[in-house]
């Protein structure tokens, strides 16, 4: 039976009022919200909003880190028939202004002073950036805000106090309002970062997200006993699925970290049973393990090496319960005691039952590493427009290069051009105020056009190759899938970002970004002095290392049918990190290909002209909003290409 999110919250509070709903670490201690308290706070915030004039049909902008009251604010707004609009907490003012204006939000919820300052600045701003309609700003953390006297600024505690007053005059108002909300009403508007154009607001209903959540809960048998760490941006469709929709459907406990810097420590303390992270987070874990292993005592290093060999050989089979020889089973057991167990504990993964990764391709070595030490890591596939719910890998059916089979209730189809089409109950109703954009992605039969190119294999598993619009051709006629090559490059821990060019050209060239942590550590180990990012990225030794990586990728491509011609001919290492603040990446860290090509056109020309080096000056925005410039003379290198390897017939 479909319901709405506020109804689900009421239901949990009725059935198990004292069970933990949310936790947050504050002042060194995990504070718990029971389901009853969660409902009470939601009620009081909702009634406080109502007393300020908020009601059905209005939108409320939300910006901040993962905090219990922020999540409960979502439900408060929904209780009144309003729609919460989460924004990325690191969004720059212009992006926020766009969302606030398009949604005509008169109310906003901000986590702390930093966000309040941004909102006040926008409200007072002039011209294009102004958002004068923002009448009420509610904040969670009062730190530093005590002397603010701006109109309409109110702390969430005061809001709840208003709510309690309102409750005395209107005791049944909250319940009455909840009863009027229908499952088909919009529950949330999530703005997609948009790799090409201005952001679009994806409208999702209660029933769409609840259907997506129910599917995931059924496949992975999630229950009220599970624990989740909520640390991903609340403006992201995946976090709304895990930290709100599945939370309210399954009734597990969500845990909010103390601060963004303490996530790793909090993760160890909570030991989540269900976990979601983009590949880069898993990559970070593996990198920190590798770095610490290199500093460990020789005996530990030896043990680690020895038992990781065993894990590589049989770990994945042990995980899915396949038969394994007795000797191997014993060594794996011993390894678990001495190495895998402590490792998992150090990463906070001891209690993991199900872990997911999505958002980008995951490296084969990385994926195998986690599965071999007994972490049930799986992949899923979805978009904001599909409630992050299209395909997921079921236990025992995990393949490295696919994203799994269609999830329950989802219909998959590959269009003639190779584009993946999806039909399910969890599709967007529309892009907010953008009927023409909606018509572009939703066809007459009700299929959503994902924009991804993919194939479905014999077992019904979907394999994503690239963004459909990015797939191009070299002048020689070979298919050019830039993401495919870039992902291979990014699987090296030393390479943080890569951008390949080749569509309509005779060969493939690439830009690389070093991973400052990994390469910096490597340089320290080698005793190679460097002054900073620009200097390190230009070191001859670093370039040689990058060249080796590129050539390894070329060797791999040479062995793949249809990919031999897309080996990388030339490359350079960029002097600055590609950054969302400079519009080179989206907020979810996807490369804005067209923008990068335009901004660095000089470099691309130099690469294809065969020049050995090129001077470039680039404007950069610092985190505090100041602008500056970095310049460098970049060296361009040729990479060895390999003859196509024909597999024996």
């Amino acid at each position, binding site marked *: 039976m479909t319901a709405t999110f506020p109804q689900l919250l009421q239901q949990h509070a009725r059935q198990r009022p004292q069970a933990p709903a949310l936790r947050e670490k504050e*002042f*060194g201690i995990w504070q718990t919200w029971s389901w009853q308290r969660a409902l009470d706070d939601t009620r009081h915030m909702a009634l406080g909003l109502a007393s300020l004039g908020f009601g059905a049909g209005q939108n409320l902008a939300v910006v901040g880190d993962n905090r219990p009251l922020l999540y409960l604010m979502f439900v408060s707004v929904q209780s009144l028939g309003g729609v919460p609009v989460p924004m990325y907490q690191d969004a720059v003012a212009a992006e926020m202004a766009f969302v606030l204006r398009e949604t005509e939000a008169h109310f906003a919820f901000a986590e702390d002073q930093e966000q309040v300052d941004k909102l006040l600045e926008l409200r007072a701003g002039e011209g294009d950036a102004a958002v004068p309609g923002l009448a009420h700003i509610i904040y969670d953390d009062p*730190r530093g805000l*005590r*002397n603010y006297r701006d109109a309409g600024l109110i702390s969430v505690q005061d809001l709840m106090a208003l709510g309690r007053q309102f409750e005395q005059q209107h005791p049944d108002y909250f319940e009455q309002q909840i009863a009027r909300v229908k499952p088909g009403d919009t529950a949330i508007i999530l703005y997609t970062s948009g790799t090409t154009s201005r952001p679009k607001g994806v409208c999702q209903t209660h029933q769409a997200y609840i259907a997506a959540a129910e599917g995931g809960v059924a496949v992975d048998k999630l229950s009220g006993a599970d624990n989740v760490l909520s640390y991903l941006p609340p403006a992201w469709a995946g976090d709304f699925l895990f930290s709100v929709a599945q939370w309210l459907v399954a009734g597990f406990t969500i845990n909010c970290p103390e601060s963004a810097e303490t996530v790793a420590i909090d993760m160890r303390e909570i030991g989540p049973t269900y976990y979601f992270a983009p590949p880069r987070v898993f990559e970070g874990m593996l990198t920190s393990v590798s770095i610490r292993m290199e500093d460990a005592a020789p005996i530990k290093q030896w043990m680690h090496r020895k038992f990781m060999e065993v894990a590589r050989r049989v770990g994945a089979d042990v995980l899915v319960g396949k038969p394994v020889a007795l000797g191997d089973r014993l060594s794996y057991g011993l390894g678990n005691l001495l190495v895998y167990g402590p490792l998992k504990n150090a990463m906070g993964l001891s209690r993991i039952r199900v872990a997911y990764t999505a958002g980008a391709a995951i490296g084969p070595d990385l994926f195998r590493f986690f599965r071999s030490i007994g972490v049930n890591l799986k992949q899923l596939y979805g978009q904001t427009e599909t409630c992050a719910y299209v395909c997921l890998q079921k236990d025992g059916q995990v393949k490295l290069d696919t994203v799994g089979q269609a999830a329950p209730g989802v219909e998959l189809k590959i269009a003639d051009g190779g584009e993946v089409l999806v039909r399910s109950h969890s599709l967007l109703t529309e892009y907010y105020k953008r009927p023409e954009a909606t018509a572009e992605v939703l066809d007459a039969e009700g299929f959503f056009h994902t924009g991804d190119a993919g194939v479905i294999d014999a077992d019904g598993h979907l394999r994503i190759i690239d963004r459909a619009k990015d797939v191009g051709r070299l002048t020689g006629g070979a298919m050019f899938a830039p993401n495919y090559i870039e992902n291979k490059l990014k699987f090296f821990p030393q390479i943080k970002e890569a951008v390949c060019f080749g569509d309509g050209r005779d060969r493939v060239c690439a830009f690389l970004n070093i991973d400052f942590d990994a390469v910096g550590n490597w340089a320290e180990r080698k005793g190679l002095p460097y002054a900073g990012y620009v200097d390190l990225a230009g070191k001859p030794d670093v370039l040689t290392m990058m060249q080796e990586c590129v050539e390894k990728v070329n060797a791999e491509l040479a062995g793949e049918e249809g990919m031999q011609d897309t080996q990388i001919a030339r490359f350079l290492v960029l002097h600055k990190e590609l950054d969302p603040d400079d519009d080179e990446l989206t907020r979810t860290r996807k490369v804005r290909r067209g923008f990068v090509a335009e901004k660095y056109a000089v470099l691309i020309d130099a690469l294809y002209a065969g020049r050995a080096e090129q001077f470039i000056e680039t404007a950069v925005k610092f985190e505090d909003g100041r602008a500056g410039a970095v310049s460098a003379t970049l060296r361009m290198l040729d990479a060895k290409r390999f003859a196509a390897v024909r597999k024996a017939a």
Partner: protein
Amino acid sequence: MNDAVIAPETAAAVAGLAGAAAPNDARKIGEVILDVKNISLRFGGVKALTDISFNVREHEIRAIIGPNGAGKSSMLNCINGVYTPSEGSITFRGRTFSHMNSRQVAEMGVARTFQNLALFKGMSVLDNIMSGRNLKIRSNIFQQALRIGPAEREEIAHREFVEHIIDFLEIQAHRKTPVGQLPYGLQKRVDLGRALAMEPQVLLLDEPMAGMNVEEKQDMSRFILDVNDEFGTTIVLIEHDMGVVMDISDRVVVLDYGKKIGDGTPDEVRNNEDVIRAYLGAGH
């Protein structure tokens, strides 16, 4: 056994820290809290300070500036009770002293941080800040060692206070890290945290921003302003970075060769001929 081991003011302070204190008036500059009169300090034949007088008002941020060797740290050490001035008197909250020791000063509510960090490098951030609670702890070493009822309750109350400081200074991620492993800017923050743990009425900061990069300086400035703002703590600080001093202080004292050459608001001091000469040379 005395049951009321938790000083009532501790509980009140915790409540104050948690509940964002009394609104509004915390930052209103009040009466003179610290009055330095005709202080001179001699080390043998060397005159470090000559006839210095100035006062500090409640809730203000007061800076002491001057070129190297001007006597700034010596002045702070006199207030702090580390040096005993050869002449002159210091009046704190209406009580006048010609000499006192540093423990007395600490008990009266004056805390300080150090130019060259004086933290316990091998101890965690938490323990370092906890050590600032030393004067507030009532139970004795045996009660603490055996964790007898009140000692444990007391420790919990102090820990709660320290946790609020950790939250305030945003060092939660380093709670259990040995201080020696932290970067310099964070160590300075821990030093500040330990001084705050004393719940001082007056906080003496000896070059809180020495050796920091621009970003660290901005952070530290914000913390100093926040301490002053949220807790109403009176702050006396020595600083080299003129930009920082002019931005955050209410009034500035300028010393040169152990003599006072200027005193007033940042604007007054900036336009003071003697000050300009001391900093830029006589040819100006």
